[in-house]
């Protein structure tokens, strides 16, 4: 699909439309002029020798107008324009998928559930006013817990945008135990940022005090980092000229905001990305395949609606692979509780049913389909991905 071709086609339509408008304007002006002329003649100062015959003037006017024939001229221009106007949509239908709802299944898609999902999405994105407006119009119940949680997160993040780390530090110390499990040194990083902020303002004594109170507890784990920060004291107020100038980079603030948001969501048992965004992104990637499938199955509406599993794979990007799916290379069956993947001594993996089929009975040896190794069912181990 060439966007340039489409843009050119549209420009042509717009041009024809402008032409049509200016033509119409011209015709109106022309007719107007004739009318004005006739009027002038009728209203002319009467000459006693030549009486004014308004009727013949009007009849002359009529003849003139019939000669111009504005109606048929308008018709011709419109006809031309109409051709362009119907060509363009045809081009669109050719270059784009004309109906993306062909793959839609008319199943019960409860819009209350959808509304709840959207509401959660708004809160995650920090759009609280929009959420309130939405609640008003949709009459959905407000998920207060989630709202308060994300409100807190955005309060912390907003404060950080104006370089205020207090809410963040408060939250981190309140959740110290839980955060320790994730081993990301968030607290240390926040204190470091705060230290650099104080130092930049030139307050050496305050910075030293801060280090003693807040950085010291981390001495055992982050000694080299602390040593660097202590050295910075020498350049209080003029860190830009120090060898540690990069500590002032705004990217630190951005990175730590992301880390904090990630940790916050983690502690809440929520994903970092809005699940709605993920699902829609997956839909955008998968829909072309599903549409092609719906097209191929156009005559088999019943089969389409009743299928329990898609007959073709929908390839999504790596970021959408949340689960391990084992597909037996022999039977193409997906691994499950009843039919788990089994490891053969040669290192190749087949599903249990394929192995049972290959061994015909449970004690005979069978050859691996991929290499000369032989094995029995007994030496095959079940795998857990």
């Amino acid at each position: 699909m060439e966007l340039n071709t489409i843009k050119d086609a549209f420009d042509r339509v717009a041009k024809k439309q402008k032409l049509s408008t200016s033509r119409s304007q011209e015709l109106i002006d022309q007719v107007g002029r004739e009318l004005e002329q006739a009027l002038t003649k009728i209203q002319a100062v009467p000459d006693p020798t030549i009486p004014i015959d308004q009727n013949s003037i009007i009849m002359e006017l009529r003849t003139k107008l019939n000669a111009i024939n504005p109606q048929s001229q308008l018709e011709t221009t419109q006809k031309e324009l109409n051709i362009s106007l119907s060509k363009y949509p045809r081009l669109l239908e050719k270059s784009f998928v004309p109906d993306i709802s062909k793959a839609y299944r008319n199943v019960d898609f409860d819009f209350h559930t959808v509304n709840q999902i959207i509401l959660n999405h708004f809160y995650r994105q920090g759009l609280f006013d929009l959420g309130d407006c939405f609640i008003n119009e949709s009459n959905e119940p407000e998920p207060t817990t989630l709202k308060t949680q994300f409100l807190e997160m955005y309060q912390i993040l907003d404060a950080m945008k104006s370089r205020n780390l207090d809410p963040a530090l408060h939250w981190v110390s309140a959740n110290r135990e839980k955060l320790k499990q994730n081993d990301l040194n968030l607290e240390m990083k926040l204190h470091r940022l705060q230290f650099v902020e104080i130092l930049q303002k030139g307050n050496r004594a305050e910075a030293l005090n801060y280090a003693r109170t807040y950085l010291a507890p981390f001495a055992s784990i982050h000694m080299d980092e602390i040593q660097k920060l202590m050295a910075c004291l020498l350049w209080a107020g003029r860190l830009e000229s120090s060898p540690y100038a990069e500590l002032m980079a705004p990217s630190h603030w951005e990175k730590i905001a992301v880390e904090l948001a990630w940790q916050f969501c983690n502690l809440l048992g929520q994903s970092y990305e809005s699940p709605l965004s993920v699902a829609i992104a997956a839909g955008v990637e998968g829909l072309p395949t599903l549409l092609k499938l719906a097209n191929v199955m156009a005559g088999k509406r019943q089969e389409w609606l009743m299928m329990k599993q898609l007959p073709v794979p929908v390839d999504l990007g790596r970021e959408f692979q949340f689960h391990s799916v084992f597909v037996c290379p022999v039977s193409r069956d997906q691994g499950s509780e009843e039919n788990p993947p089994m490891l053969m001594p040669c290192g190749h993996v087949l599903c249990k049913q394929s192995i049972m089929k290959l061994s015909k009975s449970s004690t005979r040896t069978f050859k691996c389909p991929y290499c000369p190794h032989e094995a029995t069912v007994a030496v095959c181990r079940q795998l857990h991905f």
Partner: protein
Amino acid sequence: MEMDSLPNGNSTAGGATAAALVSAPSSKLTQLAESLKLEHQFLRTPFEHYKKSIRANHRIVEKEMSAVISGVAEAADSNFSREEAVQHLNSLVSRLQGLKRKLEEGSRTEHLQAQRCRARLDHLESADVENLSEWNNTRMKRILVDYMLRMSYYDTAMELAESSNIQDLVDIDVFLDAKKVVDALQNKEVAPALAWCADNKSRLKKSKSKFEFQLRLQEFIEYVRAENNMRAIAYARKYLAPWGATHMKELQRVMATLAFKSTTECTTYKVLFEAKQWDYLVDQFKQEFFKLHGMTVEPLLTIYLQAGLSALKTPFCYEDDCTKEDPLSQESFRKLAMPLPFSKQHHSKLVCYITKELMDTENPPLVLPNGYVYSTKALEEMAKKNNGKITCPRTGFVCNYSELVKAYIS
């Protein structure tokens, strides 16, 4: 070395052909190009609006011009006095001036609409691999505005559009046109709906729409309900009879209501008197309206959501330890995905429990003596930090790195 697959009882002949015809794009650029092809509505709707304005404006010009020309002809045939002639001609002149003003105004509207069409094309062109996440974010917002408008949450739609500055990329004004008709129908008034039908007569005729007929039928029923039988019959003569040729059965059924009262218990006719019929008219209108404007009948949100859920749905999503990064770990998503088919894979795709990364030839899976599998990267890291000892995070089983075996997954 590839083995021929044993026939899988599940796949039908149609499925096999389908698999051959369908191939998935791999690179990000192809991905992007494919996703742009889904944006038909995005370009078509403003264009239909533009086309409609052009045609409406032209009709005005035609009508007024004809009136002026025939005004002159009429004057030529009459015997006007001087004053009468002047008066008459002056009225024609001012009519023309009025037309000129309308034409200018119409031209301005058309220009704005053309701008909008161009803005949409530019937006599609601006999609690039570099600004992908921002462009996707905008798409998410466009999809949400479309949903809000279809559900009649107009305030939310406008606030979302304004706050994200995407007013040119959404069609709020088109939906507001529909709102007038919908609101009237919900108030049991058919006049705006009938006016809409008149406005779009030729296109509705082309698609063989019977919406106008259904509106007329409802008006008839309302007369019967009010026991205004004589008016009902007169109404039927004028407005229902022309549809008799193509929709006789339906016409007869509704005409029969004359014999019943609106409180009838006879089921065939009781249903015709129910208030639900008005809701049905609203739905019909929405469908016709969307079709005419180049929009999908379903909201974009549900179309993409269904596709996404089906593509993501695996039996593992419904287990308790489903990772929370998977949307299907959420109850609401699980509920929506229930009636949808599971996704299918043709090749194994394995994800390391520890790092969540793909376990492929670059990062092959390693098997512990207890059968649990993790990625080489994860286990190497673990061994480095723990003197070569490996502890299975799910079972607590301890072993040495040396006891691990490589698994070959194709």
